[in-house]
């Protein structure tokens, strides 16, 4: 079922705002559990690209995790739209589509990193850490 949540978090000074976009509820919840770290605050979740764009327009995130295969609007198209709205957004693609052409296409559209499903907790936190390090350098 399509869903999107967004809550205003005006007290998050110094924290990076995270949006999670995946059509799987268990994956959204897993990412949310694992990324509740000091520097990140989950501000919204979405189950497809269209809902992600809507949530992003209401409150832009600094960091986004993005699935590719989703109903209504896929992750590749969504990446392009989010980057157009906020060019410095950091986007980590998290997808089971592990072929090189998919990764290259996502990076061309503006994504910053790629993590293959399935992933361990450690692989996820390391991928996010690398994304943030890349933004600082």
């Amino acid at each position, binding site marked *: 079922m399509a869903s999107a949540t967004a809550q205003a978090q005006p007290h998050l000074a110094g924290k990076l705002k995270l949006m999670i976009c995946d059509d*799987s509820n*268990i*994956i959204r919840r897993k990412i949310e559990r694992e990324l509740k770290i000091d520097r990140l605050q989950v501000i919204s979740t979405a189950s497809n690209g269209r809902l992600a764009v809507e949530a992003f327009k209401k409150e832009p995130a600094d960091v986004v995790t993005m699935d590719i295969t989703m109903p209504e609007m896929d992750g590749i198209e969504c990446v392009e739209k989010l980057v157009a709205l906020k060019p410095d957004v950091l986007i980590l693609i998290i997808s089971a*589509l592990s*072929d090189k052409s998919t990764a290259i296409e996502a990076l061309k559209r503006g994504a910053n990193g790629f993590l293959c499903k*399935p992933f361990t907790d450690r692989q996820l936190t390391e991928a996010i850490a690398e994304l943030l390090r890349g933004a600082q350098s």
Partner: protein
Amino acid sequence: MMTKVELETFVEGTTHYFETAANQPASVGSPYIVQDGKPTVQEFTGVISIAGKRRGIVYFTASRPMLTVMLMRMGETELTQENMCDLVGEVANTISGNARRDFGKDFMISVPQVVAGEPEKVAPPDNMRSFVIPINWRSHSAQLVVCLE
């Protein structure tokens, strides 16, 4: 005729999911062929359809008790029907991703469909034999079914 390499791609996609997402490897039982009749369908099934160089379906089917333990191993506390559907869909999604990577454009692979509690909706094409590969994990057994011409 389906090749051993093709079959291994589907099996590897399935076992990789258990090892990585559920933090515990699964073992592969002895495969068998269902020539006539319909292979096993358990309570939750993730199905991908394949066209192009091969035509048919591949599905992963598992019981509620197995999926419950998998969800718990993944840290999930909501052991709902929706999350069990999600889980078999994710396993099928991983199998699909592996196949796309290994087979390239020769295979056209659908987005996974999830069937819960309605085994008649999982319909391998007529007149095709199915390879059934038992996937054993802890005390549970799921099946990977590959039915390709």
